[in-house]
Every structure is written in C-alpha cells, then in structure tokens.
C-alpha cells in the first residue's frame, strides 16, 4: 500500500498562491476558507534576514492526532495511500480534531462537518497529481509514494536536506520542506 507524501522546494516557491486558487477551484472550497495556504517565515535581524516561503496544508501525518481523538471514526487513515480523510456523514462536528491538530489545518465546512486537504484523492485515484501540484508555475512540488525508494519524492528527499513542520509535536508529518 502506498504512503503518499509531498516534498516542497522552499528555494523555488515564490508564494504566488496559484496552489491556493487551484485547491479552492478543484475542491469547491467555500468562500472564506482555505485547505491550503502560504506561510512566510522570517528569521534573523536586519540586515541578516532569512525568509522561507511555504505552501502549507494538512500534513497527512503517520501519527495523526485528529484520527485518534475522533469519537465516531469519521476521521480515518484511508487504505488508499494512507491518506488522512474525513467521512462527512459520520462527522458530528465536535471539533476535537480541529483542537488536536498542531498545524491548524482543519476547519468546519459551512455544512457542519470537519474539512481539510485530501491531497486531491479523487485526482490521485485517476493517476493525476493533486491540483496544487499540477498548477505550480515553479514546479516546487514533488508528490508521490514515500515507501517506494524509486519514486521521485523518495529520490528528492534522499538528495536534499528537508524538514517537516513541528516535528517535536510527534505527529510524523508527511509533507517535507526542502531546504
């Protein structure tokens, strides 16, 4: 079984937000909500500053707290690609998953259920890349199976330094940022 993840090259991402627009269009994300977003992190003191631009979303963690806290099993690790998904008609909207996510990646859809990035599972099942990956003008995304040593993402992660977000939170995220 595949274990899908993503590597995002922070040297190539310019924060154009094409990925955000593509996600909203592809997944009909309601106005005022985002499944993915851009984070600009600046460290240092002028004039020695360093800025990292990141396209962020649900990290589809290997140890997902949103799944373990869900009282109905609506949040689950799907057999397809080990993706963390939500079954809308099983969700009671208790918001425990929103509180449990250290990345604040979830929100309550106006229809009442918890919603978040699915890595465009409907596209991936058809052999396509997620919408954000396919539209990126700088090709900063590499999407694929982390368990396949010959996949593009595995090769990329083997060749470059990369970091996930908040590793100390212990969730084992599967979105990596290439330094």
């Amino acid at each position: 079984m595949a274990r899908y993840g993503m590597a995002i090259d922070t040297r190539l991402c310019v924060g154009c937000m094409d990925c955000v627009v593509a996600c909203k269009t592809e997944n009909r994300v309601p106005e005022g909500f985002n499944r993915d977003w851009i984070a600009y992190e600046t460290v240092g003191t002028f004039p020695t500053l360093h800025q990292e631009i990141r396209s962020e979303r649900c990290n589809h963690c290997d140890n997902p707290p949103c799944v373990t806290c869900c009282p109905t099993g609506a949040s689950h690790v799907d057999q397809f690609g080990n993706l963390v998904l939500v079954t809308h008609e099983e969700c009671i909207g208790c918001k425990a998953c929103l509180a449990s996510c250290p990345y604040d990646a979830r929100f309550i859809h106006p229809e009442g259920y918890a919603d978040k990035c699915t890595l465009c599972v409907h596209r991936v099942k058809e052999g396509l890349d997620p919408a954000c990956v396919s539209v990126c003008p700088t090709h900063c995304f590499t999407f694929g199976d982390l368990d396949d040593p010959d996949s593009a993402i595995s090769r990329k992660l083997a060749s470059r330094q990369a970091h996930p977000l908040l590793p100390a939170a212990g969730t084992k995220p599967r979105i990596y940022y290439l330094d």
Partner: protein
Amino acid sequence: MTPELFITRHNHLIDPFVHVWAWQIPVYLFLGGWVAGNMLLTGYFMLGGRHTRRSPLLSALPGLSLVLLSLGMLALFLDLEHKWYVWRLYTTFEWTSPMSWGSWILLLVYPVLVLTWLVRPPIVLEDLSQTVERITTTLQGRREIVRIIGVGSMVIGVALGVYTGVLLSSLGARPLWNSGILGVLFLASGVSAAAAFGHLVTHSPDERALTVRIDNVVLASELGILALFLLGLLAGSAPQVEAARLFLGGPYTAPFWVFVIGLGIVIPLVIQLLAVRHWIQHTPIAPIMVMAGGLALRWVIVSAGQVSHWAHGAMRIH
C-alpha cells in the same frame, strides 16, 4: 530573536488562534464534574449507612444529578456543528478517543443515578408511587446490593470526573492542556462543587459539618494540584513554558488568579475554615464562590488552552 510568521489563511474558528469551543464546553465540563462529585458523595454516604435514615442530601443529589447531566449534554449538543449526526457516537466505540469513552460513560451514569435515587428517594416520590416505595424497601433490606450500588456510583463518578479532564489533556496540540494532571484537577474540582452544593442546601447540621470538611480538604488539595500543574508546564518544553506564561503575566493572569484561585478557592477556604472552628457562622457565600470558581476554572482552562500553540515561539500574523 522571535521569528515572524505571516500566514495567508484566515479560517473561521481557527485564526488568528483556535477558538473552536465557546461557553458550551466549559459548562458541560463543569456540570459533568459536579455530577461526578455528587456520585462520589452519594456512594460515600451509602457505604457509610446513611441510606438507612433520612438524609436530605442522599435524597436530593441523584435526582439533581440527572437534571444537571442532561443540561450538560444539552450544552454539548448545542456545541456540535453537525448536530443531526450525533447518533453516530453510539454506532461505534473508538478506544483511542476520550470523547467516545465519555459518550459511553455518560450512558452508564444514568442507570447508576436512577439506582442510587431509588435507594433513598425524596419522601414526595415515595408518597406518590407505591412501586417506588416497594423498590426502596427491597433495596434497603439488602445491604450487599446497596453496597454494590454505592461502589458503582463512586467508580462511575471517578471515571466521569477524570474523563472531563482527559478530554482536554489528550489534545496534545494545545500545550496548556497536554497534562495528565487535568483529569485529577477536574475530578477534585467536581467533588469540591458537589460538597459546596451540599453545604449550601442541606438543613442537617451533621451533613453540613461533613460536607464543609470534605470541601476544605478538597479545596486545599486543589491548590496543590494547580501548583503541580503550573510547575509541570514550567519544567516542560518551550511551548509549555509559553502556555504557563498565559497565567503568569499573560492575558489570562487576572481571570486565573482572581476568579479561580482567589475568589474560587482561597477566600472560600478561609471562610469555611473559620466557620469550622466556630469563629464565624456558616455562610452561603463561601459555597457559592466555590461553585462559581469551579465554572471559572473550566472556562479559563478551555479558553487559555485554545490560545496555547506549538508554534508559540513565532510571532504569528494573519
């Protein structure tokens, strides 16, 4: 130096900081804790043989608890965003989810409360129904059954009280909540609320003396538990230290020290200690303060916990 983090996201209930739970959850946790305390007191009274004589508290607490628990569950229901799917809680048991444990524990609480009520129901109820009178007479005649019901009430009460804290402490993404001490703290606070309520309403001098003594011991213990809670955070990782600072100079300093510690624990404890030593008369003000302090504790912990975050080291701009 503090990193500056600019995020383009502005999701409802999430940004600029998580605020998914409003008044409903603190009210639910408070009422749940209070019912847990009532169950512990009821069980303790039954094991002590108080069911064999007229006991205003033993007659009142189980019935009151049925109402309080229902109100708490109503508050929880009002908090749900996908309300009409609430039945999904009872189509599965998710052993890793404290909320799933809680929903099943709540189902166990109701029959135990009804049984404890039937052991010593209010006189009005006995007069109204011969069936109730018959059941009560049968139960009171069997000491072992009363004992089992009493122990069951205490066990389920502890499970319910601890659950109200574990519900929060299992959410590791919020450093303030990520402490096992919350379960013990909320249980102690629930027992304190129950004892304070007993102190407030009972006409029996014997029961008043007992409940005020229980309350004083639990209030003093609560101070110790809160100190351990803060020390645990301060000895933890950077996000946990940041979380502790919410109460130590941060935005929740005044509500925590004034309403929870001062008005909710220390002042009523002093008043009740003076009353126990007969230096002043018993006053309803102290137990009312204790109960209000219990609600304030849940409100402050739920609100501040949502502000605490793993990325607190960074200055977040949305």
